[in-house]
């Protein structure tokens, strides 16, 4: 029946073009393809070329090809320090996000609360609030004039304000604040896809609720947890604003290093090299992930 309609439709619209003509698809997708080629693929290719250019002086480089930038990156421990710190902060943030995010995701999924949508809406609301504002608002909690210090001093627990702001801990706190909704939504989406009768079955077969969780729910929610971990790691390791606002000078991450190299020192070849390093690092994380899980889970998370 469907095939017949198809034929019928085909006959009516043709005029040289089939109903789902490939040419039409290309026409529709062409502007986006052009945009992505010019603004994404080409720039990445050119950055790669730039890593082999010679730095002359601030803002000036020559097209004499050299391995100097790569040598400098590979031998200078200054850069290794940044790389290691970025990976560490990204990993710590992602893991804490996973632990803290699983509980709310599970709660929203399992609750019998009638207005569940409200809990979900509250997770979306932070996405609408300016990231810069969400980040600097932590100064009001952690700073010398922040809520914690002011309250503790009033209560007489401490005499001097605690130095909490401009530390690595503050940076991680800010990143958690930014990334938790991503993690919770990712886990929630994969919990939603679990057939609840499986859990009831496990329970009726004599599993304790802890066993049922460990053996059924947790493994089945792994795709969401994995996608959340990857997303949090990538976004944390690529962050710029959070370390800038909440970290001290020693808490800068790779993104800040790139910004300073390009916008401050105007050393474009080195800046390009560092960008490619970060790109490859995060790309490797994503590729490793997609080998096991596939990227479709990420798309589910992004569109949730």
């Amino acid at each position, binding site marked *: 029946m469907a095939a017949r309609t198809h034929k019928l439709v085909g006959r009516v619209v043709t005029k040289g073009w089939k109903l789902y003509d*490939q040419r039409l698809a290309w026409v529709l997708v062409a502007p986006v393809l052009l945009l992505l080629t010019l603004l994404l693929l080409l720039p990445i290719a050119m*950055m790669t070329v730039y890593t082999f250019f010679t730095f002359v002086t601030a803002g000036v480089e020559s097209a004499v090809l050299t391995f100097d930038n790569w040598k400098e990156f590979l031998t200078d421990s200054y850069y290794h320090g940044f790389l290691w710190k970025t990976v560490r902060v990204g990993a710590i943030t992602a893991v804490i996000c996973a632990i803290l995010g699983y509980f709310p995701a599970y709660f929203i999924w399992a609750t019998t609360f009638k207005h569940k949508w409200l809990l979900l809406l509250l997770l979306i609301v932070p996405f609408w609030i300016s990231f810069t504002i969400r980040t600097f608002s932590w100064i009001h909690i952690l700073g010398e004039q922040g809520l914690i210090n002011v309250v503790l001093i009033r209560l007489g627990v401490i005499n001097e304000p605690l130095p909490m702001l401009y530390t690595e801990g503050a940076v991680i706190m800010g990143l958690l604040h930014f990334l938790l909704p991503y993690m919770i939504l990712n886990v929630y989406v994969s919990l939603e896809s679990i057939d609840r009768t499986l859990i009831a079955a496990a329970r009726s077969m004599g599993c304790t*609720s802890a066993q049922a969780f460990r053996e059924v729910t947790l493994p089945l929610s792994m795709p969401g947890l994995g996608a959340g971990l990857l997303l949090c790691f990538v976004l944390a390791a690529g962050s710029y604003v959070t370390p800038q606002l909440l970290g001290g000078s020693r808490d800068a991450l790779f993104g800040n290093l790139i910004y300073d190299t390009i916008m401050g020192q105007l050393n474009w070849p080195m800046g390009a090299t560092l960008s490619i390093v970060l790109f490859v690092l995060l790309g490797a994380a994503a590729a490793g992930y997609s080998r096991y899980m596939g990227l479709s889970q990420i798309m589910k998370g992004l569109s949730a």
Partner: protein
Amino acid sequence: MRAEHPDREGRWAWRLTGVITVCVYVFMFAPILATVVLSFNASMFGGFPLTGFSLRWYEKLLTNEPVLDAFRTSMWIALVTAAVTTLLGIMAALALVRFEFRGKQAINTLVILPALVPETILGVGLLVMIKAIDQPRSMTLLVLGHILLTLPYVVLIVQARMVGIKRSYEEAALSLGAPRVSTFREITLPLLVPAVLASVLLAFTISFDNTSASLFWRPAGVETMPTQILSMLKISISPEVNALGTVMILLTVGIPLAGGLILQSLSWFKASK
């Protein structure tokens, strides 16, 4: 739905889950709340303790020319970005959902890429690009960059909706002799309206909110709202920044919420007819 007969262990675990959930929500909103509260603080300094209620920081904001300029700039950029990205996104999603063609999978992945590549890298990439063709940074570059940043989200939203629209509606119109363009206008587009509205809103907020990449792309002397806030924060956290933050929160949370409510009441109105 919890397990039907929770054991003791299960009940404790459930309580713990509830407590942590509440803590996470408090964690999410406490700092934002602090900013809103402090914007009404009479104190000369941006932090605690509270010394009295005052609206003077809002008054000061209204006469702050750089802030108003940045606001107008961001508004324009976000409007243009939202319009262009939504248009391009609908076209691409139409092709990716309705058609079969070679390289479709690759394009699907490519479209998502800007959401996964860190903004610093996208930022440097475009700068290297215009440096190579010897062009200065311009508003066009900034808008193009924002279109790139918002595209993945728009395509994903429209795709998700498009999958749910049956082909047979379009095919029926076509088989009755309707041209493709009017089929799209009369059949597909009305069914896509929720996705289109969601796309426009999301693209608008992402563009309006973008910070890191905009720091790279903005032309010399131009500030967008977030970069203006960043430069205000360089000196110290002033009560004026708190007031500005509160206004922005009201705008960016209020507009989508109002939009959602209007949509909901519209569909209710339609249903009751």
